[in-house]
């Protein structure tokens, strides 16, 4: 059996196997809350939740793996994050199927959820703990594309992104000032990638943005997303 979703472990650009059917896309959060009882002894959630045996799962989506503040991760998980593992639905699904398979060396001693339906429901529930802004879904609109994994998984080069971004910041101000044109700094990379592709594919229809993105390759979009994510 192959790991359906993985991330790029190096600068090499393509991997990824058969596109899976994203069952997790339509889980039931209420049912997921019941599944979560199996997690609760190690993971705290909700307002003021801190870390326990495992990190809090508040705002987990869109987050780089191994980066919840104050939690001591295994080296394996930190390395995975540094190599580009970001918690999106697909990676979360793979992880909770069997944590040690996606991230060998993780300290999470949970054997996994075998049933796809349980995983889908749990993911739907965990989404309720991630405010839209943190997830970047605040930046998304209906009609934005579902991008193939090989695009979402690209790891952008920040230095190249900085150069490319010089053309964005003619209009999008660095800093949080918005004057009729939205601020784009600090967006989670997956949201930025999705939105840029939405313009490139003409799912969104601002002609300046279509023009700007029309000349960008997938790698260049990843680079921009990586750079803007670093700004505060």
């Amino acid at each position: 059996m192959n790991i359906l979703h993985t991330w790029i472990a190096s600068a090499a650009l393509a991997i990824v196997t058969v596109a899976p059917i994203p069952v997790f896309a339509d889980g039931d959060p209420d049912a997921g809350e019941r599944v979560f009882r199996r997690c609760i002894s190690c993971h705290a959630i909700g307002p003021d939740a801190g870390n326990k045996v495992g990190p809090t799962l508040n705002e987990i989506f869109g987050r780089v793996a191994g980066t919840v503040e104050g939690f001591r991760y295994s080296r394996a998980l930190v390395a995975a994050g540094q190599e580009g593992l970001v918690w999106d639905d697909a990676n979360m699904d793979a992880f909770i199927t069997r944590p040690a398979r996606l991230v060998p060396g993780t300290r999470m001693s949970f054997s996994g959820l075998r049933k796809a339906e349980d995983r889908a429901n749990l993911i739907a529930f965990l989404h309720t703990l991630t405010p839209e802004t943190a997830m970047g879904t605040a930046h998304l609109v209906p009609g934005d594309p579902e991008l193939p994994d090989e695009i979402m998984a690209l790891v952008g080069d920040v230095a190249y992104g900085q150069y490319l971004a010089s053309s964005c910041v003619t209009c999008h101000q660095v800093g949080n000032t918005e004057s009729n044109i939205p601020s784009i700094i600090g967006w989670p990379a997956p949201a930025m990638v999705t939105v840029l592709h939405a313009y490139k594919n003409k799912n969104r229809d601002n002609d300046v943005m279509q023009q700007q993105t029309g000349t960008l390759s997938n790698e260049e979009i990843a680079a921009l997303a990586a750079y803007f994510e670093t700004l505060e």
Partner: protein
Amino acid sequence: MKLDRRGFLGAGVAAAATASAPMVMAGSHGKPKVVVIGGGAGGATAARYIAKDSGGAIDVTLIEPSRTYYTCFFSNLYLGGYRDMASLGHSYGGLAAQGINVVHDWAIGVDRDAKTVALAGGGSVPYDKLIMSPGIDFRDGAVEGWDLSSQNAMPHAYKAGSQTELLKAQIDAMPQGGTFAMVAPPNPFRCPPGPYERISMVAHHMKNNNPTAKILILDPKAKFSKQGLFQDGWARHYGNMIEWIGPDFGGDMVSVDPGAMEVNIDGEVTKVDVCNVIPAMKAGRIAELAGVTNEAGWAPVDPHTMATRADGDIYVLGDSSQQGDMPKSGFSANSQAKVCAMAVRGALTGSATFPARFSNTCWSLIETDDGIKVGASYEATDDKIAKTSGFVSQVGEDDATRAATYQESIGWYDGITADMFG
């Protein structure tokens, strides 16, 4: 050692530093020195990016006579009454705070052998790399009867500030039913839609203050930027107030008499109340003095870096450059400045360089909430900056689209001025 850019792109690798070894200039005072002449759209941006991205490794001096830069962009909106002059003024305090040595003086000469720039106030400034973005100057004798000494009677208002204020005062003082004439420039010139946006703004003013006024455009060009969009807008908003006289009807055979306030169109003399003469243009004079311009009056540059063809240590940006397909606009100058800043940093400190890419968008306002735009992307080829693709607003767009375009232009104005001045 030069990287093959096509090969670079073809490799599909997102980024790589050039393989060239750092060529740190061992100047007498250690740090490499960049001097920038002109603190406008091109120069301010280049100075800021080099200072910001080199983290203090490069000494940046900006030479600019004015303490306040008034943008030409949106100066037409001032004429239309949408902006005040103060909102177009920007100071250099932010650049100074970035560590840039801002010298308020004129550059009056460049010694390319000694690599120094002479200042009007005396003394000179040494450089390892010199960047010039001095904007435009007017060609002598371009419009018969007009020279710089007539600019009070017949303003050009094509450098923003007091000229713009003068033109505005003349428009405001125009007698009811009077005539406003514009002598439009031949190609190439700063801001291709600029004269026609200006006509729109004057018409907007007249419609509300002087509805029987007439507006004449005397144009040596057979066609102009966004022509269909402007003419459609003029017909919708301003009836037959505006008359465009192209070369077929003598628009290319115009002389003026500033004393008598007359224009002569191919032998036919017309009395006018305001006359906006926008003469043919050339590179800012200092580029010519540095010997980097050609017979046409512009400075040919290498599209990959904006270095002049005449001198690899002198770069020319913006309106003064002859680069290929990009229009002479603030947006273009800003875009070119970023490529140049990267190339100059790379040459002086060995920092990573990437293949040059450029873009431009020009927004224009036809009437309240009726904005249009034209834009394109460009790449560097060996002989020119070449357009790769573009877009333009369409005739018949709905009101919401046009209003959004105008709102977007305001965002762009705030964005680019922040990008220039920090």
